[in-house]
Structures are given as structure tokens and as C-alpha cells.
């Protein structure tokens, strides 16, 4: 009797153990994926020096010089309100002008924009309504001009900052 009772108990326990084992055949996980806003802009390098060397007798505006040897590339996943702005580290003196044209196949280029007085607090739009995606190898064109009445300009370094923003 005792033996039967023990056996029965053992069997019951076995069943209990077996049942417990069968209750853990699957497990679940919660995995959260997040894609943050991505902005990336890069340029192919620096343009060549722009040097004004000639003009026309009787005319104050000297012959301007241009450079289109560099390109920019952007990637963004935010939306079509993204825009590209440009500014100089410091404004040019009166009588000198720097214009910028940024080509674009993903947004609307502002065409040729005067950035002579665009500093960090007054950056100008150069491309607007940039659609999601990548835009690679788009041309950057600079045009530098000067007035004779402004005088000569010794070799001067300027930094142009391009910023993607929404």
C-alpha cells in the first residue's frame, strides 16, 4: 500500500514535471526598431583660387571669375521640407561679391545666390524642398567679382559652411 502510494505520488510528480516542461516550448521577445533622422552632406574638396586680373577701360566692374570644379552630395530621410543653406565665416567688404549656385536633382535650386553678406546668423537658402533620398555629385559654382573702386585684395581665405536643415 505504502509502496503503491509512493509510486502513485512519484507518478503524479512526474506528470507534474512533464506538464511543467511542456509549458516552456516558446518564448517571446519585444524588439523595438527606431530609425532616426539622417542628414549627411559632403563635398568633393575645395575650389581653385579665384583671382580677378582684368577689366574694361571706363568700367568700374572688373571681369568676374568662376569656379565649378567641386561637387556636393547629400542623403536625408526626413522629408521634403529639408533645405540646404550656405554662409560665409565673415562678410566680404563692400565692392567685392561672391555668388553661389548649387545644382540639385532632389530639390529646388535657388539659382545663383549672393552670399557676400551671409554669415552664420544669416545663412541663405541655396536648395529647398529636398526630397528624401540621396543626391550625389551635384555641381557647386562660385562667381567672384570686384569693383575697381574697391581696390586690390590680397590673397584672402574664406570658409563657406553648407548646412542641411528642416
Amino acid at each position, binding site marked *: 500500500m505504502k509502496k503503491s502510494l509512493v509510486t502513485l505520488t512519484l507518478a503524479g510528480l512526474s506528470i507534474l514535471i512533464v506538464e511543467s516542461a511542456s509549458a516552456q516550448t516558446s518564448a517571446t521577445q519585444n524588439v523595438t526598431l527606431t530609425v532616426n533622422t539622417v542628414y549627411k552632406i559632403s563635398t568633393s574638396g575645395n575650389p581653385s583660387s*579665384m583671382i580677378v586680373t582684368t577689366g574694361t577701360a571706363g568700367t568700374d566692374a572688373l571681369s568676374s571669375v568662376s569656379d565649378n570644379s567641386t561637387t556636393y552630395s547629400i542623403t536625408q530621410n526626413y522629408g521634403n521640407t529639408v533645405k540646404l543653406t550656405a554662409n560665409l565665416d565673415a562678410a566680404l567688404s563692400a565692392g567685392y561679391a561672391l555668388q553661389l549656385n548649387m545644382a540639385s536633382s532632389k530639390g529646388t535650386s535657388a539659382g545663383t545666390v549672393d552670399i557676400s553678406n551671409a554669415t552664420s546668423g544669416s545663412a541663405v537658402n541655396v536648395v529647398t524642398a529636398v526630397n528624401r533620398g540621396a543626391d550625389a555629385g551635384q555641381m557647386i559654382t562660385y562667381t567672384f567679382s570686384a569693383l575697381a573702386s574697391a581696390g586690390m585684395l590680397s590673397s584672402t581665405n574664406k570658409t563657406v559652411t553648407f548646412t542641411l536643415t528642416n
Partner: protein
Amino acid sequence: MKTQILYIAKKTAKTLVAVLAMASGLYAQGSSTQQSLILRVMELNKLGLIGGSLKLTIDKLYADQFAPAPVVNANTTLLWTSNGENKKITVASNNNNPRYALRVAPQEMSPGAGVAAPEVSFSDNKNHDFIVGVNRSAGKCVIQFTAAADVAKGIGSDTHVITFTITSS
């Protein structure tokens, strides 16, 4: 065994979440970039002439004298542009011993583009001041030539090649 399986599952989940978080962090960078430019304006001095060659013919007498009347020509224009300081424009003839008198002076000058020098009478082939005080300006003036002949000099002709030069004062 089951504990081991559970342990591996938990560790994999943590790793997966960590990888996703890291990826997001990487793509948050790079929203601006810069280019360096070098700008320069060299010294520039330019002269130009409108009107070309001239022919002055003395063939009339003064109304009340038996002397040839001078002839004046103001049909040519000189233009200049300079972004330099303290410049002047000189004039010279290649005829250093002319038979007849030829004089030249600037007229109707652009305001602020320089100061007219006194009329020049060509008697040598040296440079003479024509316009002074040219500083970072663009301007123009009428070139007025006056030809005169003394009756004692008879009839004939002189040839002048006139050269204007912009130079430092």
C-alpha cells in the same frame, strides 16, 4: 537545458537592441560641411580710346587777321579703369621736333575719376602729365587737340603718334 535556451534568447535580444541603438547614433552625424576658398584681386590698370586716328587741317584764316586759324578736334574719348592708388595718365608724342604747334588737354572728365593737368604742347617726345590723382576709379574724358600754324612756317604736314600711359605718380 531550458534555462540555457532562455539565457541565450535573452542575451540575443539585448544584443539586437544594442546594435539597433548604435546604428541610429551613427546616422545622426554630418548635417553640415565646409569648403575653403582663396579670393584675390590683382592690381589692374586699363586704358582705352574711342575715335581712332585724326586728321587736322588748317586751311582758314582768322576773320580779322591774315593768320591761319587754329583747328580744334574733340572727337575722341579716353577711358580708364584702375583699382590702384596714386596713379596718373601721361601723354607723349613720338615727334620731338614738330614744325607746327599741336596741343592736347582733357575735357568733360568723369567726376571724381581724376584731376585734369594743364594743356600739353608737344615739342619733345617726353611723357607729360595729362590726368593726375587717379585712385581706384573708372572714368573717361574728351581728348581735345588744338593745331595751330605760324604763317611763316609755310605749308606742309606733321605726323604724331600720341601715346597715353597710366602709371604710378
